[in-house]
């Protein structure tokens, strides 16, 4: 079954690449604006040989990792605090629902004003976008705590911290992990978008430079790299999720009693 999936996946990718080669070659779109796969691959090889590419990749990953870490920690802490402090959830619900849908990209002028075109601008937007993913999942996770388990822990005399640690956290963790996985993808999108739009150092800026330079194959090569990064981020996030939840029934695959 698993082997079949891999073969199917590889066949799908091969078909996609072949389509990318054929469409411009057949003249359906102009080669000048959408180069065939082979030319993009050649440009990719050139890029990989360039030191500037690697430092750009490093900048993007730095922005992504720092932003994701800050957003995840803040999301979990705020989520737990908002949930367990009485009345705080109700008091903040409308504010959260107001702030959450604001697209991070709309804050670009603010980021530029505060931090110019530096890493901090990227962080501001990455953290803003991915924070909500983690926060909302944490809130739902905490809400899902079994009241009987909570009451039992209470009657056994467990303190607030012990109940957070042994009752709330195991219940919320699967939700938090989903939040972090979603946030990981959002953080990458935002990191590259910010670099592309305001020119903070990183892959996004390289894409923008290629665009303004009329270097079309190079631009697509960098876009492919962005796609590959997204793929890796997703695989990595799923692995972390599976590890952290190895004990959970959703991962163990056993039927809950």
């Amino acid at each position, binding site marked *: 079954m698993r082997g079949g999936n891999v073969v199917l996946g590889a066949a799908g990718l091969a078909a996609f690449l072949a389509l990318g080669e054929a469409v411009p070659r057949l003249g359906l779109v102009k080669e000048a604006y959408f180069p065939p796969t082979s030319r993009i691959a050649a440009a990719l090889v050139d890029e990989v040989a360039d030191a500037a590419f690697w430092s750009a990749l490093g900048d993007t990953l730095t922005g992504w990792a*720092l932003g994701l*870490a800050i957003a995840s920690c803040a999301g979990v802490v705020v989520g737990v605090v908002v949930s367990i402090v009485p009345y705080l959830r109700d008091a903040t619900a409308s504010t959260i629902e107001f702030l959450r849908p604001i697209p991070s990209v709309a804050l670009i002028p603010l980021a*530029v004003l505060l931090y*110019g*075109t*530096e890493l901090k601008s990227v962080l501001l937007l990455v953290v803003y976008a991915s924070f909500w993913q983690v926060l909302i999942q944490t809130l739902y996770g905490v809400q899902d705590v079994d009241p009987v388990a909570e009451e039992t822990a209470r009657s056994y005399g467990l303190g607030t911290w012990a109940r957070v640690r042994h009752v709330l956290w195991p219940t919320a963790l699967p939700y938090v992990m989903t939040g972090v996985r979603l946030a990981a993808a959002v953080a990458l999108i935002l990191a590259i978008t910010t670099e592309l739009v*305001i020119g903070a150092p990183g892959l996004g800026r390289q894409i*923008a430079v290629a665009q303004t330079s*009329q270097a079309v194959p190079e631009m697509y090569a960098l876009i492919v790299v962005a796609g590959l990064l997204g793929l890796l981020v997703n695989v990595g996030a799923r692995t972390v999720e599976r590890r952290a939840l*190895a004990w959970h029934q959703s991962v163990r695959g056993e039927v809950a009693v």
Partner: protein
Amino acid sequence: MRRLSAGLTAGALLLVATACGSSDDGSSDAGASSGGVTTVKLGLIPIVDVAPLYLGQKQGFFEKQGLKLEFTPAQGGAAIVPGVVSGQFQFGFSNVTSLMVAQTNGLPVQAVANGIASTGVRGKDFNGLMVKKDSPVKSPKQLEGKKVAINTLKNINETAVRQAVRKAGGDPDKVELVEMAFDQMPAALDQGQIDAACVVEPATATIRSQGGREIASPLVDVAPEVTVAMYFTSTQYAQQHPDVVKKFQDATAESLAYAEAHPDEARQIVTTYTKIPASVLEQVILPKWPSEPNRASIEALMKLGEEDGLFKKTPDLDALLP
């Protein structure tokens, strides 16, 4: 599981700590001097226009003045004016219409050195109003009722295109201007999504290589040898650091003169900060890099801009220009 979550938390906290650490050595101290060399941040768009400063840095013209430029490429230029006003950059590169708009909006900006000028040669300018090979349009007058792409509405290219139409005897109000990034114009023109495009290099070279025709040189229609863009700083910085501004002006003037005299070296340095393919770069028409701005041409841009309703009030050129 406990160890893992502890590890994850510890790692995350470490990352947060690094984030805080690196944010301390922020930009506010840029422009400070150490060992007799003042490092200044320059916000610019990585295009052909700014080649003289890259060249000047390489030739040591800035070092001679005790300056070190830190190039901070920003996309589209939208980040540059706020960046300079908020002190993220000490200097920036912007077109003069944007500077006039910024000034009339109450932003404290001040031009300090010349940037680029149009070549003033019709058909041989870095900026052109172009149509595709088989287009029936022969003159800007025929653009009435047609769609023309410019990079930014209510800015210098709107002034230029409207003037080109006006000069050809057409009514600029009848031309539909749409906003589009320069790099997308060749494809859009080719696909027929737009009827004409006001492009700059290297997109101009791309369109020429596809057989596109230039029906006007809009900047030439504005004035001969228009000062298109300049280097600027904030009024506060100019007041607090007149010595740095003076050094920047001198080194920039020397760089502009050098680039003007050595176009091949200018072309060469462009490859270090852009990805323009060598085949395209050969075809690119370089702008003029005079050391001094052409005030008459800026006045012409201002008058036309006022006519087109670009400014809230009349720009004060005496305050804006060096």
